[in-house]
């Protein structure tokens, strides 16, 4: 059996998102897979190079078009559907980019989609979480049409670099819709590591009480080179921006170290951190559910513990 997998690359115009390399690892689990990556961009240059360097990739298909400067599902889907005929599988990351795009592709192909693939069990057989990760399904895609899926990136390591795929330019000949126009993107500029790929994450909850207090968390993060996350409660309360939210409807992450401070640990939050290697919980309430999943629990007031932690980390320098 041989499978041909097309992965839709995610990028910001300048750099490949790490989710792409994780999709490659997922795809390599499909028996006999030959893997191509599609890069849709205004100008692909270094993006194509980066994709070609991922180990296990055969070809990088470059679709350059001015309309691809700002990815919108309605614009990208027809371009990718035009390529789909050659493939048994089309995969994208289970990030907001992939979640928006892949179902649009699937519907145009008259295919179902497997969302949040966390394990590959066969050519058309996968495992995926449902009910906020409280149950795991093993599913099989019936029929012979292509498998469309999104990859739960926290479940796969990034593919190594060192590959040397061929890069091919593919002209965009399909008609692109004009009904969906990009207006703006306000991204928080930050020197901190990216939340979704960081090795260490410190995360804060409602217990911080204010946006001002939440800044204490940034100081701690910077001392250990961590990314900053937040619970839904902290985002809803306006202490932290939405792109920091960790959980069922926010980001699903798998850092080596996750430190949850003042987060009680609602099921919806826990589902976002289940794959963290080591979880530390600091909370005033000894019965908070976060302690059920924590490898190290510390009961106490964060306003006392955080300064202590900072001082201890300074001592170590």
């Amino acid at each position, binding site marked *: 059996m041989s499978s041909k997998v097309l992965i839709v690359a995610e990028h910001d115009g300048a750099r490949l998102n790490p989710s792409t390399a994780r999709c490659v690892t997922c795809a390599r689990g499909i028996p006999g897979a030959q893997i191509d990556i599609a890069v849709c961009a205004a100008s692909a240059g270094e993006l194509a190079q980066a994709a070609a360097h991922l180990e296990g990739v055969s070809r990088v298909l470059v679709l350059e078009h001015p309309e691809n400067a700002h990815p919108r599902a309605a614009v990208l889907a027809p371009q990718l559907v035009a390529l789909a005929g050659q493939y048994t599988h089309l995969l994208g990351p289970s990030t907001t980019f992939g979640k928006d795009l892949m179902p649009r592709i699937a519907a145009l192909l008259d295919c179902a989609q497997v969302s949040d693939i966390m394990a590959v069990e066969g050519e058309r057989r996968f495992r995926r979480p449902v009910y906020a*990760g409280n149950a795991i399904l*093993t599913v099989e895609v019936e029929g012979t049409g292509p498998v469309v899926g999104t990859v739960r990136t926290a479940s796969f390591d990034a593919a190594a670099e060192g590959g040397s795929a061929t890069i091919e330019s593919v002209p965009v000949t399909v008609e692109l819709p004009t009904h969906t126009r990009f207006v703006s993107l306000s991204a928080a500029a930050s020197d901190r590591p990216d939340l979704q790929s960081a090795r260490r994450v410190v995360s804060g909850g409602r217990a911080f009480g204010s946006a001002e207090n939440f800044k204490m968390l940034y100081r701690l993060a910077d001392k250990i080179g961590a990314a900053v996350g937040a619970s839904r409660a902290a985002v809803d309360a306006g202490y932290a921006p939405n792109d920091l939210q960790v959980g069922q409807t926010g980001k699903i992450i798998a850092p080596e170290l996750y430190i949850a401070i003042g987060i009680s640990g609602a099921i919806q939050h826990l589902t976002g951190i289940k794959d963290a290697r080591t979880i530390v919980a600091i909370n005033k309430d000894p019965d908070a559910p976060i302690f059920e999943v924590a490898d190290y629990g510390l009961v106490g007031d964060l306003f006392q513990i955080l300064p202590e932690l900072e001082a201890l980390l300074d001592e170590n320098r």
Partner: protein
Amino acid sequence: MKRILVGIKRVVDFNVRIRVKPDGSGVITDGVKMSINPFDEIALEEALRIRERGQAEEVVVATIGPADCAQQLRTALAMGADRALHVQSDALIEPLTAARVFLKLIEREQPFAVILGKQAIDDDNNQTGQMLAALWGRPQATFASKIELSDSTAQVTREVDAGLEVLEVDLPAVFTTDLRLNEPRYVKLPEIMKAKKKPLETLPLESLGVEPRVRVKTLRTDPPPQRQKGVRVKDARELVEALKQKGLL
């Protein structure tokens, strides 16, 4: 008439602790509290607010599922929807089937906006809105945290991984809701009484000519692997020592 179509799904209430059946055939739903999917409640609230601002005249709420789903439609009517459509079926409805059904409802109702929750909290698929927009050949504005309508377009703020993205879409369009779009209203008792008199139309799935195909077959349902219970440390110093010992700091 300027009309908004809202889709809702009956799901296990978000407060219920989910348990997997010992034989791996699914999760326990017998005797469990069922509610409107929270994201769909937000979708309905948004439609009601648009109507209350005078930017729509009618809000039609629709669901697909067995007879019991009428309960959730009644709740939606009590929240303020004008009428309800119940596409009745006992079959398993995949997102692509749901999208096909909504396309049929769009043909019937001619809405200028369709608002759906971004995902259902049971199957966590996050597909139906995008699939519907594709089949309809119309714009999709997913994960919306703000929707501003004008006559022929909508400006939508979307919660994306990088931050907040703003798109402008031509109407009609499909919108899917994120958590911070609004806070749904509570239903008051008099409204529940009034809702009993509002129109609720039942349409058998077959009458729409949509076949409930199952293309992603569930073979088994397992509980998630449990994490090992950890240890309590007594203070910050002990925590730092422990993390250092494991090479994490």
